[in-house]
């Protein structure tokens, strides 16, 4: 069952679609249930769809109307948000913005005119149901032939399953922000550093970080999870079959609550053909970092008659997910060597973190290392011409000198946002009509996150005008990486490629950097806009976007 799980799910979904009336609409029935999630090590009660977590893979066709009946079998309200889908705002599934939510026992019918194709996912937008297991995948078949060929495909959905419930995790983080951060520096580290750099330098460096109440290893808020692939832990070994020489399409989805993964398949190069559901000009890589809520579709061509490991190490190296690609059932790929050394943030990563850090004295701070970057726009894409075509190109989406810059485990190519170019631009190029600055802010001591220093409940909505092209300027004044997600409308990430800038729904902003994206405001209504790290979103890193003007929106409600 496990090995043919995806095939079974797809067959089931196709059968459901076939039974629906006519070829114009596909109908799905989803129930939201309490489920047991068994990772082998731990058994927890979580939330799933149709009795399982992850939920099923829904298969839509571009051009049809997808009808999804959602029945809530929980004792609390629920919702489903279709991540990355362009649809009428009342169908977007955010309680308090799109609709009131789905009460216990109620059935809500979503009607979505499908106007796109690619890999997407869906999840609850209520409480911490998504970290607790309420997520599933969406495949939308295109109307026209895709610009790449493959012989078979698999959804590969990543999750950071924690033994604690989402509610419990937030309570602990509020009480003690480093509750789940295990990789703290020890006395042993101190002695090593003294040996390397001398006592004075080491004391001064520790003092700098200490005075900020920051830890250099503070890359992951929540450690202690088990990495899952398609709901299975490394021991449970999800396996996808292939015939040697076949082209296999892997639809990677990061459905995690808080964790970024560095993904590689030792022995296989991956050709990235889609990012966030949109075709990109194909680029060959050995490894890529997938933010929370992002998707990447890659083509691999395993040629040998052996098992290959699909390996995803968390960005902070505290956990990993593992699965196997094999020519036959019953095989398990060899586990690659783990990289256990946590990356360390540098002063460059704190380039703009001068804001509210919970302390007063800034005198002891050594800006030496950040001198090239602080206050400057050094992290803007497209500025690094010094290494054209030769040698290593610094990734412009990380602060110069950042400790987070990823390096491929085999020394090969690591994907950068700078490599993403639209295969076919979705919008004509034109200058933005105005710029809106969004400073990503937070107070680690109180575990409170915000935008422009203001939490969601205290903030005015962002008002956009239908028909304008707004340029968002994200300035990350925190030490953490934030995947920013705008609902309902595409974000054109500025990678310096002009009309070839890629179109995404989730954009990761690294510490100490400024990133720009543009949005053609072409969908009326009200939309959520937030950091997709669950506990950041919950504590205030969230805004409502109101689109003023545009066609009058009819009062769509339950199933109309």
């Amino acid at each position, binding site marked *: 069952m496990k090995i043919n799980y995806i095939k079974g799910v797809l067959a089931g979904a196709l059968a459901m679609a076939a039974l629906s009336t006519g070829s114009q609409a596909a109908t799905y029935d989803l129930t939201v249930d309490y489920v047991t999630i068994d990772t082998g090590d731990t058994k927890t009660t979580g939330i799933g769809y149709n009795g399982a977590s992850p939920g099923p893979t829904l298969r839509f066709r571009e051009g049809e109307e997808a009808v999804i009946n959602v029945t809530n079998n929980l004792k609390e309200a629920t919702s489903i948000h279709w991540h990355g889908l362009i649809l009428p705002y009342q169908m977007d599934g955010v309680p308090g913005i799109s609709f009131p939510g789905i009460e216990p026992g109620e059935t809500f019918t979503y009607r979505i005119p499908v106007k796109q194709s690619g890999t997407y996912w869906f999840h609850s937008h209520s409480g911490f149901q998504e970290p607790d297991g309420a997520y599933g995948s969406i495949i939308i078949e295109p109307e026209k032939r895709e610009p790449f060929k493959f012989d078979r495909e698999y959804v590969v959905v990543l999750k950071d399953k924690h033994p604690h419930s989402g509610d419990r995790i937030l309570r602990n983080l509020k009480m003690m922000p480093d509750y789940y951060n295990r990789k703290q520096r020890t006395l042993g580290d101190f002695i090593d550093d003294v040996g390397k750099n001398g006592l004075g330098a080491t004391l001064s460096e520790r003092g700098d970080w200490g005075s900020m109440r920051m830890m250099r290893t503070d890359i992951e808020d929540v450690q202690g999870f088990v990495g899952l692939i398609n709901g299975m832990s490394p021991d449970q070994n999800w396996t996808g079959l292939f015939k040697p020489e076949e082209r296999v399409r892997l639809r990677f989805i990061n459905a995690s609550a808080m964790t970024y993964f560095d993904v590689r398949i030792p022995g296989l190069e991956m050709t990235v053909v889609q990012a966030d559901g949109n075709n990109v000009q194909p*680029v060959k890589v050995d490894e890529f970092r997938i933010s929370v809520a992002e998707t990447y579709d890659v083509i691999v061509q395993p040629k040998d008659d052996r098992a290959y490991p699909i390996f995803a190490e968390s960005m902070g190296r505290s956990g990993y997910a593992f699965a196997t690609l094999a020519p036959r059932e019953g095989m398990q790929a060899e586990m690659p060597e783990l990289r256990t050394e946590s990356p360390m943030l540098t002063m460059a990563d704190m380039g703009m973190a001068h804001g509210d850090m919970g302390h007063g004295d800034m005198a002891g701070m050594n800006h030496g290392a950040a001198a090239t970057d602080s206050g400057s726009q050094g992290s803007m894409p497209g500025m690094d011409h010094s290494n054209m075509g030769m040698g290593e190109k610094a990734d412009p989406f990380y602060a110069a000198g950042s400790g987070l810059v990823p390096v491929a485990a085999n020394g090969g190519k690591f994907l950068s946002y700078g490599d993403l170019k639209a295969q076919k631009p979705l919008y004509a190029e034109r200058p933005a009509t105005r710029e809106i600055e969004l400073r990503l802010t937070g107070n680690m001591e109180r575990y409170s996150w915000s935008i422009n220093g203001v939490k969601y409940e205290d903030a005015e909505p962002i008002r956009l005008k239908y028909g304008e092209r707004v340029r968002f300027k994200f300035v990350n004044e925190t030490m953490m990486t934030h995947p920013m997600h705008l609902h309902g409308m595409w974000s054109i990430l500025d990678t310096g490629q002009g009309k070839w800038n890629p179109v995404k729904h989730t954009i990761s902003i690294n510490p100490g950097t400024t990133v720009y994206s543009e949005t053609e405001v072409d969908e009326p209504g009200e939309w959520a806009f937030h950091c997709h790290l669950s506990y950041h979103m919950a504590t205030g890193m969230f805004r409502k976007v109101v689109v003023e003007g545009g066609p009058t929106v009819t009062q769509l409600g339950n199933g109309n």
Partner: protein
Amino acid sequence: MPNVKSNFLTRLALSTSVIGALMTAPLAAFASPGHGQGHGSVAAEIGTPGKAADVTRTIKIVMEDNFFDMETIEVSAGETILFQIENKGEFVHEFNIGTAAMHASHQKEMMMMMEHGALDVDKIHMDKMKMDMGNGMTMEHDDPNSVLLEPGKTAEIIWTFPADAELEFACNVPGHYESGMMGKVRLKS
């Protein structure tokens, strides 16, 4: 795919045909000086440019984004084919006849072309192609076994296939081969 019978015989056959080809074919036809190094020792014969008079069949090849309209080409050993190639896509594409190894090394060359600005996704910059890469190598696509076409353009290749070889036709623009823009040449003896 016809199998090679023995290593020795293969090498004997190949070296004979290589010497034969070098003696009979004009210099530019087999491998232009610019690409000589890239293909290393000619371990496999891929055929020769053909003469219009010998053409037995015409095969139309359509390039789209990013695939060819056919997956395999079937030819008889020694047959001369006229290929009429049209780029109906919005991107630059190549049609190149060779072995998988040749395509792999050509992909590296085309990656370099992009990095040096000689090739955009939808445009070929002829002036940059003539740039000297050092040791007399240029990036000009004047090999007889391949054409590089901008959107909307057409070209012809007349090619005489060898008796026996494992050949592929491919587009070596970065990323296209991996996306499936290639196919096998089936040689019927």
